């Protein structure tokens, strides 16, 4: 059931590509007219172009980038690892840290922790990602001079081997922190709210009355139930993750897909823009599928094969 849903998503998801491809074609003719029209087949009807683009995309060919004079897939593949380097660790760190902090906020009797964590999470949630990135730069790079401001490697070092990886790791700290912070708040708030709902339920009272400490009852009885919806929400927020990645990469001049996309828009390189949007959407959907699978493994009550 879940997989069928996923495939239908994928098909409809791919569909916006063709009218958009047509639009992009229209726009370019205004700029490049004579030289480009014949070369990219823009003299054909809009429907033909869309159909052809669609056919090519299914075969994994996104066309050629106007700006880089290389195939779109090649350009994207070069940038993809850098984006994943930020995205994947940030999901893990923010999930674990968020659930941990949410758990503490829910079970603590100390007023400062109990309402302080959610309130600071709300504040964190209100800060625009790019402003947060600048704040971090201002504190850790400009004032304290601990961490590099921009880029992914130090261009003056020409380091190789282990030194190269250390250099990349050093440059990754600030962008990664920005990405983690931008997701953290939601997870903290949600974990706390879910936990407090679970605490009100009868089974929790049973656990307490049979002599468990509140601490143990929360971690072992309420948490497993509360975490499930949190995982769904983490899954449904991958779209926001992309937003965070684009903004973070722009601030830190990080050579990833988000930065590439902004550049592609600036130079009106539509095949590239479409290719990136397609790839990013595909990543979002694959991650969603992963969450669904995760969910069914964690919650034995869910069975995708059984129709109700």
């Amino acid at each position, binding site marked *: 059931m879940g997989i069928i849903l996923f495939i239908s998503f994928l098909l409809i*998801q791919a569909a916006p590509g063709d009218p958009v491809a047509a639009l992009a074609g229209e726009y370019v003719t205004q700029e490049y007219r004579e030289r480009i029209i014949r070369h990219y087949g823009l003299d054909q009807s809009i429907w033909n172009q869309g159909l052809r683009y669609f056919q090519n995309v299914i075969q994994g060919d996104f066309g050629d980038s106007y700006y880089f004079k290389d195939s779109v897939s090649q350009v994207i593949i070069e940038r993809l690892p850098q984006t994943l380097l930020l995205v994947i660790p940030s999901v893990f760190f923010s999930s674990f840290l968020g659930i941990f902090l949410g758990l503490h906020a829910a079970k603590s009797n100390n007023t400062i922790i109990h309402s302080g964590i959610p309130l600071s999470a709300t504040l964190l949630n*209100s800060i*625009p990602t790019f402003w947060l990135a*600048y704040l971090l730069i201002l504190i850790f790079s400009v004032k304290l001079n601990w961490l590099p401001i921009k880029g992914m490697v130090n261009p003056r070092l020409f380091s190789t081997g282990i030194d190269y990886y250390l250099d990349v790791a050093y440059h990754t700290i600030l962008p990664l922190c920005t990405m983690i912070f931008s997701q953290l708040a939601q997870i903290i708030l949600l974990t706390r709210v879910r936990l407090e709902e679970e605490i009100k339920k009868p089974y929790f009272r049973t656990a307490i009355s049979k002599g468990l400490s509140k601490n143990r009852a929360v971690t072992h009885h309420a948490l497993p139930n509360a975490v499930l919806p949190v995982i769904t929400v983490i899954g449904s927020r991958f*779209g926001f993750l992309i937003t965070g990645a684009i903004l973070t990469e722009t601030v830190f001049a990080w050579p990833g897909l988000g930065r590439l996309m902004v550049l592609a828009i600036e130079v009106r390189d539509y095949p590239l823009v479409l290719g990136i949007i397609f790839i990013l959407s595909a990543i979002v959907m694959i991650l969603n599928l992963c969450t669904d699978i995760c969910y069914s493994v964690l919650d034995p009550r869910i069975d995708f094969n059984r129709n109700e």
Partner: protein
Amino acid sequence: MNKVSATQWWGFLLILPALISLFFAETITEGSFLNQSFEAFQQPSGLYWMGTDDLGRDLWTGVVQGLHNSLIIGLGVTILAYSIGLTLGMISGFFGGILDLLLLKLSEVFVILPRFLIVILSASLLGQGVLILILTLGFFSWTTIYRIVRSEVLSLRRREYVLAAVALGSSPEWIGRKHLFPAVLPLVLSIAPLSICHAILTEAGISFLGLGDSENVSIGYLISNANNFIFSSWWMFFFPGASLTLTVMGFSLISYQK
């Protein structure tokens, strides 16, 4: 409605400056932000409350007008998303059947589309204007409201007062307007501030990338403009971001769950 909690009062207090800028932006600032002067990079002072930027533009004016525009976009997107979500939700829940199934699948598709990418795409293809931004964002933000309304209407449909209205021969439109709408509105209204938050932050992100409306000031533009002067002029970067953060914080406190 419940009593207004202390957190919510703080929320109202925080959005007060933004509300003032929404209604009195013209009164409390002089001229347009785009008016340049020779007094560039002035520190905050009695004359320039928030300093001036690289082109000698008054940042106080910029922040006030930027908040004004942010709020218009936030409210516009929310109103549009609520209209679509409420209408489709009521249709879907009331009629059920194949129509319900289609709308439900459609909402699932809309949920999964990365909204920010769509807005970037529309800004770069259709043009960079406030109206286009509001339309695109609103058109892609209705799913949450749709789902809440649909599930509520599904249960409301079996209530006796709705059944009585059906039996009396009221048209679906009349039932929707007179019986369903007042029942579902309070449910979804409590999350309206969060919808405003999302819209404001998305708009800031878009204009930070340089895809905002070039005719109107935006907080995102002010921050991206401060980018090059982050070492020398802290005020150019600090005030726009702080004012936006506090406003968004205010809206989230209003719908804060205790």
